[in-house]
């Protein structure tokens, strides 16, 4: 029994942290926030050079085949730094979908590009401000051609390929779509978190290549979301920790009533609640990482558990960080809102918390039956 990352994995963490501190500081994040670029191209190039995009992709498909524990370590650091890159869309969503349901040919065709960073992939499921379901997804597929509107699609404006959820006669199915096809239009869309690009994608009789069995789309999505939930939970914990560190730092240096506000119990207890939530989430994430890495049958339960607690921790930590900063925390100029925005994005990007809680209890009911 050993519930720690290994020495090598911690070395990878140190390397990732120092790279991101150098190439992807909050100043870089703010450039994406205030500018027109969809992502930080220099940071993205650096990540590719370090081989991060191929971390968990097997060597036979062009990756470096390290494993999911290493990918979790990187995810936590990406979350801490708020890295404005298409990493998660390409690696946690697109690559996971191909690895989960792709044929041997599809894996050989699409994964090397993701691993080397030559291509960017994403996953297009949502269709507006409501929870998607196999019944309400309006995108249609017939004779290998897809039509419909997907939004918001993470990194949809910069991705080369997308796995698209659409209904065919057999039910919800997944298709790999080349977004450079003339029949596709992709427009950037304004969102709550401008440090991560999202788009509206229109498909009109667009060729799509079936991924997995026809009619099996919802089931495959569930599996992809389980893996992605663990990886995003590490990003959430990284962000929660960064917001906690930021609030703590401010409380130590801000004076009121003749002393640092960190001496007041009202502030101390707030910081402790942020810390406790983050530690519980971190521990659940370790469980998730283990389940993901070992392909455990417990993954569906572990994934929901770490996602729910990481969502709670990031929400708690990012909103209370603003509170500790007082009025300045509410300004565009201070960085607090960057974490608050990212926290909300990550709490809904794989479906909202009510749905994950419901899924968790359903999975526990099945396990206890």
């Amino acid at each position: 029994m050993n519930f720690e990352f290994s020495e090598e994995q911690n070395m990878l963490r140190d390397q990732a942290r120092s790279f991101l501190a150098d190439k992807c500081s909050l100043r870089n994040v703010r450039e994406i926030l205030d500018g027109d670029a969809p992502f930080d191209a220099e940071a993205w190039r650096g990540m590719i050079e370090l081989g991060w995009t191929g971390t968990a992709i097997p060597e036979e498909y062009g990756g470096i085949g390290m494993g999911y524990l290493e990918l979790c370590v990187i995810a936590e650091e990406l979350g801490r730094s708020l890295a404005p890159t298409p990493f998660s869309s390409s690696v946690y969503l697109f690559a996971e979908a191909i690895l989960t349901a792709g044929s041997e040919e599809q894996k050989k065709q699409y994964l090397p590009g993701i691993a080397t960073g030559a291509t960017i992939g994403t996953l297009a499921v949502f269709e507006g401000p409501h929870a998607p379901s196999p019944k309400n997804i309006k995108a249609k597929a017939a004779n290998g051609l897809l039509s419909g509107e997907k939004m918001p699609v993470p990194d949809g404006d910069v991705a080369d390929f997308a796995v698209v959820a659409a209904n065919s006669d057999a039910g919800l199915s997944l298709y790999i779509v080349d977004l450079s096809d003339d029949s596709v239009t992709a427009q950037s869309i304004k969102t709550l978190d401008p440090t991560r690009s999202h788009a509206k994608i229109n498909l009109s009789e667009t060729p799509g290549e079936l991924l997995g069995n026809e009619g099996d789309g919802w089931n495959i999505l569930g599996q992809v979301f389980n893996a992605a939930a663990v990886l995003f939970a590490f990003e959430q914990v990284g962000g929660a920790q960064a917001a906690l560190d930021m609030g703590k730092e401010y409380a130590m240096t801000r004076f009121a009533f003749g002393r640092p506000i960190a001496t007041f119990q009202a502030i101390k207890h707030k910081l402790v609640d942020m810390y406790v939530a983050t530690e519980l989430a971190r521990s659940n994430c370790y469980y998730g990482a283990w389940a993901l890495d070992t392909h455990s049958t417990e993954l569906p339960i572990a994934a929901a558990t770490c996602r729910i607690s990481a969502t709670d921790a990031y929400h708690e930590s990012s909103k209370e960080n603003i509170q500790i900063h007082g009025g300045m925390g509410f300004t565009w100029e201070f960085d607090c809102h960057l974490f608050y925005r990212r926290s909300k994005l990550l709490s809904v990007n794989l479906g909202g918390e009510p749905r994950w809680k419901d899924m968790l209890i359903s999975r526990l009911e099945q396990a206890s039956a």
Partner: protein
Amino acid sequence: MDFNDTPAEAEFRAEVRTWLKANVPHRDKAAESEAELIRRAKSWQAKKADAGWACLHWQKEYGGRSASPIESVIWQQEESKYDVPAGIFAIGQGMCGPTMATYATEEQKQRYLPPMARGDEIWCQLFSEPAAGSDLAGLRTKAEKDGDDWIINGQKIWTSGAHYSDYGILVTRSDPTVPKHQGLTFFFVDMKSPGIEIKPIKQISGASNFNEVYFTDVRIPDAHRLGEVGDGWRVSITTLMNERLAVGSAGGPDFADIFRLAQNIEINDQPAIKDRAVRDRLATWYCETNGLKFTKFRTQSALSRGETPGPEASIAKIVSAKKLQDIGSFGMDLMELGGIMMDENVMLEDGMFQGAFLGAPGLRIAGGTDEILRNIIAERVLGLPQDIRADKGVSFNEIPTSR
């Protein structure tokens, strides 16, 4: 990262399982008097000790097994699957034992630790006073030197199990003229000493697990002092660091119990678990329960590397005491008006939810209140500065008091 046993751990676990299966006594009666419980607990503890299964991580020569931290965890995991009594030794073995092991002489360790491990002698902790709870260092029980003895006068309170304990660890004020943390001296005391009077306290649950303990001219030999004169605060910290580990895991209904209740009780003619509001609460508790479980595993991993348990362990008590209170309350919500019934012929689940509702308020206070534990985490883990203290540097006898 590996949540599975190594081959050596699996072998150890199998050995534990085999022994427990062959030796856990059959029990057919749920209710029993305190005297019966103590008898049953002592008999089980002795049986374990004789086979080398008591206080596993203690050294063999002091009644333990010299086991590794991870072996202790495996034992606890396996033993907790059985309905065997453990609580009455928790304070002694969890807090008094480590304090004795750190500060007692070799001879004293040989004399007192093995019977503590075997359950032949029960220990209690005499710390809190009516005017010194969260502000423990403000305690007033007086210790005055008289030849080779000390004479103790004063009152302790909230002493769990004082009435059935053989020994206790005691912190006293030996010098009121210096600032409060500097004038304390620590002892262990024979609870049968003349001048000790024990009165039970009736709690809101109706039970009496705690006592008031009065000291009137009680003599303690200087040889039973632990640590230097005036160094009692440092000794107390050793005890308190272990307290949070000992108190950390509370009994009572947990996620599995409220999950089962929600499956078995109905709302609107369907199982309560089908109700979205119920599912939301259950999911929150499941995540907290597992977060604590895996945090404990992380702490144990740190222990395996030879690190001492840090104040991070305080997390467990902060989270689990509140959770226990909420689960107790919610369990009764599911039973609606029938949830108030505490008649053992009609109450569900042996009254565990009502018991939690009435017991949890105490758990949120005992062993460091939620608020004190937050201060400890804030200062020792997060490194935040101390609150400004009005009594800092002031001689104890000049500090303003309530009366």
